[in-house]
């Protein structure tokens, strides 16, 4: 990481290169034994940090020049060898050098199906109106989501369509996300800024380090950071190890993750929409409807499994939906309307713009990230709606944390409907979304315009 910088510093101290040329210069890269440069992960965030401190000239290994150049206002020099750098600094003709190998990428580990994200569309799914509305709310307000249902009920299909409902990333978000990917070494030369929300779906045997970040040597961002501004799907999440699930608690609340290591503590952004998908039992064939129930699990197994679903983690989830197994009926319904992702994205974009206006002077952009006290004092529900939510608290159907989540959801429902303050209707919808109760058909009708 600092090889090149150390070498240049020594050369400067011994007078081999003029020190004047080193003023305001940042050099990044490793050296090979024959004096060639080697790529390093995290060029983008380093250049961003340098630019933030007023640095205007950067030297990086050639394949990473493109990445460094994403930072506005910085002049980037891509070099192949130490000799080239020295020649450049001395203002001499630059010698030939062998091209630098691009970083051996961890692309295979990242992005399960990143390219596929453009091909999946909400229009492919039939029925599921209830869940469609829920993911629209999740997308509009940045709310976490728990989907439970038997195998084949479409949990994964609908979850991987959520990124398609999100608007393009803002420039700021794009830089943050691309910086994380640079740090993860998941950026190929020629890759531009990531402008579309990412989707990550780690397997359930993932380690804590791979999910939230860490690892030996330099800190590598975990899947949750790679899904920053996008969607992180934990499919069959009760099968994840307990310590992995617990490590998610902090990022779910705060939107960032601090990875502490022997020497350093790094804070990485981790503000994604987390989607937890769970089967109703370990075998996945349990149906509440006895006529189609084919579950082979023992009652003890089911109980253990359900205990994992309802824990501290689910209290941090805004929306719960219970999906039923897909029936042929929906597919054969001649009057079914199949909205495309683009149509929903339009409504989501409008709802997000309303939030951006409202929170213009705040540190957050979406209802899902708004702190509870601020909502309670400055953006309250109507008195009648507040009374409705309060009633649920008294009845013990809602925790204190749940009240805040309902409040945030009510705002998103209002923003989608173009309502200026969440009233009884919006709070009612929010309560249903939170508790997992089925929505009112009228809610879905209004949503579809």
């Amino acid at each position: 990481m600092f090889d090149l910088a150390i070498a240049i510093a020594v050369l400067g101290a011994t007078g081999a290169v003029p020190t004047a040329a080193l003023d305001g210069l940042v050099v990044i890269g490793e050296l090979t034994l024959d004096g060639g440069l080697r790529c390093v992960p995290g060029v983008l965030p380093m250049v961003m940090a340098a630019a933030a401190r007023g640095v205007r000239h950067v030297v990086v290994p050639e394949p990473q020049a493109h990445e460094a150049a994403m930072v506005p206002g910085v002049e980037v020099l891509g070099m192949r060898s130490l000799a080239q750098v020295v020649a450049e600094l001395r203002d001499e003709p630059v010698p030939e050098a062998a091209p630098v190998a691009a970083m051996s990428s961890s692309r295979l580990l990242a992005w399960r199906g990143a390219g596929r994200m453009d091909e999946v569309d909400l229009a492919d799914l039939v029925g599921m109106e209830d869940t469609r509305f829920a993911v629209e709310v999740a997308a509009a307000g940045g709310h976490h989501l728990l989907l439970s249902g038997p195998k084949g009920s479409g949990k994964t299909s609908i979850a991987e369509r959520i990124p398609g409902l999100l608007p393009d990333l803002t420039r700021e978000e794009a830089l943050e996300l691309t910086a994380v990917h640079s740090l993860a070494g998941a950026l190929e030369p020629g890759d531009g800024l990531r402008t579309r929300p990412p989707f990550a779906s780690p397997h359930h045997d993932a380690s804590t380090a791979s999910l939230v970040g860490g690892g030996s040597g330099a800190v590598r961002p975990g899947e949750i950071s790679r899904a920053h501004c996008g969607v992180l799907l934990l499919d069959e999440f009760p099968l994840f190890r307990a310590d992995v699930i617990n490590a998610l608690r902090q990022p779910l609340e705060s939107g960032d993750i601090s990875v502490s290591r022997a020497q350093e503590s790094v804070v990485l952004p981790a503000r994604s929409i987390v989607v937890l998908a769970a089967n109703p039992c370990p075998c996945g064939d349990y149906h509440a409807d006895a006529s189609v129930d084919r579950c082979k699990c023992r009652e003890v197994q089911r109980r253990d499994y359900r205990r994992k679903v309802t824990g501290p983690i689910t209290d941090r989830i805004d929306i719960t939906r219970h999906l039923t197994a897909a029936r042929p009926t929906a597919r054969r319904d001649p009057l079914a309307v199949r909205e495309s992702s683009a149509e929903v994205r339009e409504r989501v974009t409008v709802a997000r713009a309303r939030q951006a206006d409202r929170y213009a002077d705040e540190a957050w952009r979406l209802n899902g990230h708004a702190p509870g006290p601020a909502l309670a004092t400055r953006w309250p529900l109507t008195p009648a709606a507040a009374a409705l939510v309060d009633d649920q608290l008294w009845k013990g159907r809602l925790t204190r944390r749940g009240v805040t989540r309902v409040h945030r959801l009510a705002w998103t429902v209002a923003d989608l409907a173009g309502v200026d303050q969440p009233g009884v209707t919006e709070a009612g919808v929010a309560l249903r979304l939170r508790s997992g109760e089925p929505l009112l058909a009228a809610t879905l009708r209004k949503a579809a315009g």
Partner: protein
Amino acid sequence: MSAERLARLALSRLGEPGDLRLAHWVTELGAVQFHDALRAGAELDGLNTELAARLPSVEPERDLERASRLGIRWIVPGDAEWPAALDDLEHVEPLHRMGRAPLGLWVRGPLRLHELPTPVAVVGARSATTYGTDVATELAAGLARAGSAVISGAAYGIDQAAHRGALAGDGPTVAVLACGVDRAYPSRHKPLLDHLADHGAVVSELAPGCSPTRPRFLARNRVIAALSLGTVVVEAAVRSGALNTANWASGLNRPVMGVPGPVTSAPSEGVHQLIRSGAASLVTRATEVLELTRPAGEHLVEPLRAPSRPRDLLGHDEQRVLEAVPLVRPAPPESVARTAGLGLVEVRASLVELRRRGLVEELPTGWRLADDADQG
């Protein structure tokens, strides 16, 4: 016959659906004579004064002509298409001072009302939940696949879910409206109503162009109930119109059925009350509706039973022995016999039989439950 059709049309134009006095005089005098009497200015209990304002504007021939241009037909009792099931309304106590059979029906769509196969009404709340609409859709699809026609209104919520289920099940489906069959009410349901007019039937007592009113919905409900062999209510709050339809079905002595919901759900409260009061049978799926609406004994539903497990097939002694075999640490037959309270000879015999069935295993130190023995 033509005179009868025209007279009934004119009379239906004069009064509101379910008007008891109109029905009374039609029975007393016959539709043609009653209509002539009104036109001649006969008072007939003050009816004339009340209807006089409407009399001059009624032009039944023009109505018929305009309707046929729109592909709408007018059917009356005595027509081949007239569904005889409606005549049962003549013997039902009025509700909300409305009742009796309709004077005639306007029909739009290819379905013939006298040929509806074992029709079932599926009705419920407009303010339904997605649980209710899903259940209504599945129920209607199941009925359609079993060959039943589905009858409902055209409201949001359960009504439309029922029609769409029936269509998905490739079955005939009929919407009964409280306005003219050429009107789309609610207007969002125009695609649904147009589809029904192409593939099913849209029916109303009210002439084309008429708009819906509250009393017209109440009168309409009796037609839904009377066209059907039975009425299923899926989600209805305590004041839902669907309960009115259920009352009509009760009055007609036709089966009333209710689909339960979560006990905490307001849109299911009306149904729960209906079931609690004994007015409705609880149904959860199409086969249970068929059991109640098809000829007795044709569609008996087997009571649901827990699946039988290997240990259900064991004899009395074997079960006692199995209960006495330890789960983890093997026990000798003597110990098992003590626990089971049975003789050693029976226990040895039972253990061998249980091993044959794979429920227990023998180790050098004794017997214990087999690993995969069903614990339930």
